């Protein structure tokens, strides 16, 4: 299935793709280059290690709060269970399953009346 929407010309489409690719590569390389200017020791490294996690937390928390009650439930259960068990595959599959079941439950596609 393809869209009937108007598309950019091929050259512009590829220019966009390769510009984005170059930019993402530059963003990755900037971190490596930036490390040359840091005095790296155990403490600095611990602070640096915390920053990407902060970015992930800043993405996950507001996005989770914007979700439906079942979405929030899925994130909360998956996160908590991962902290408890440390089992990646199990938690990933459980999280996706909860998202799917929750969405279809709220849409009335499951034989249980939604309460939210």
């Amino acid at each position, binding site marked *: 299935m*393809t869209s009937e929407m108007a598309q950019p010309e091929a050259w*512009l489409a590829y220019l966009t793709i390769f510009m984005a690719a170059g930019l993402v590569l530059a963003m990755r390389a900037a971190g490596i280059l930036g490390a040359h200017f840091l005095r790296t*020791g155990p403490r600095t490294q611990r602070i640096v290690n*915390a920053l990407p996690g902060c970015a*992930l937390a800043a993405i996950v*928390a507001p996005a*989770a709060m914007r979700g439906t009650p079942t979405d929030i439930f899925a994130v909360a259960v998956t996160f908590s269970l991962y902290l408890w068990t440390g089992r990646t595959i199990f938690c990933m599959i459980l999280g996706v399953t909860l998202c799917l079941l929750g969405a*279809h439950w709220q849409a009335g596609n499951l034989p249980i009346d939604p309460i939210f």
Partner: protein
Amino acid sequence: MRANSNITSPVADGSPSGGPVPDGAMSSFMAGLRDSLGMSFGALLFGLLFGSAATVAGLSMPQVISMSTFIFAGTAQFATLTLWQPDMPLFAVAVSVAMVTSRLTLMGLSLAPTIRSMSPWVKPAGIFVINDAAWVLTLQARNVSSKAGYFFGISAPMYTLWVLATVVGVFMAGFFDPVTAKSLAFAGIVFLSVLVGMVVRGVDAPKPPLVVAALVGIALDGVLATGPAILVAVAAGGITALAVEMARDGDDPDDQ
């Protein structure tokens, strides 16, 4: 699956630059392959979703495959897709991509010791494949003989699955009903929450900054655009990390 490898050789953080492949590099690569299984599930699912969404948006198959092959960053690819139109707003695409991939810069900073340990011929590939899963799993791995080998052991299947799943996703365009597609899209947040859990459990870093960043992110949601809000939250987390580390030892923040 536990993320940490059980290989018991001493940590050496990579092979000497330009030297022969050390004995531990292949075993570390295999350990990385094994530990990447859980995260590869995410790459597979979101590759499918991206291929499907891009095809529905009207991109040709070569364009979709080019995106996954040369960009290899789901958030950047979806950000580009949302701005896809006949008169491509290149500046807006650039700003959006830079904002959503700013964490890759931080991951590069964090992974610099591992990347620097790679041979000069391999280093560009190492930089190109920096991704969330490889970052967190590599930092968690305490007992691998070659962190560079371990890093590639994670990244290789992630990259391969991402591109292959994108191709399959092209043929699955329109396959998912809207409710399923929307819930699978949200599952991306669930995957990222597992990554945050991995940071909490295994990365050698202070934990309070994560809470601060999450709270600032929630507080700024709807006040600032997503990109700037993340940057402010990371800055708040960074200041907290500095404060925690200074309080922990109570001396000069410059390590030595």
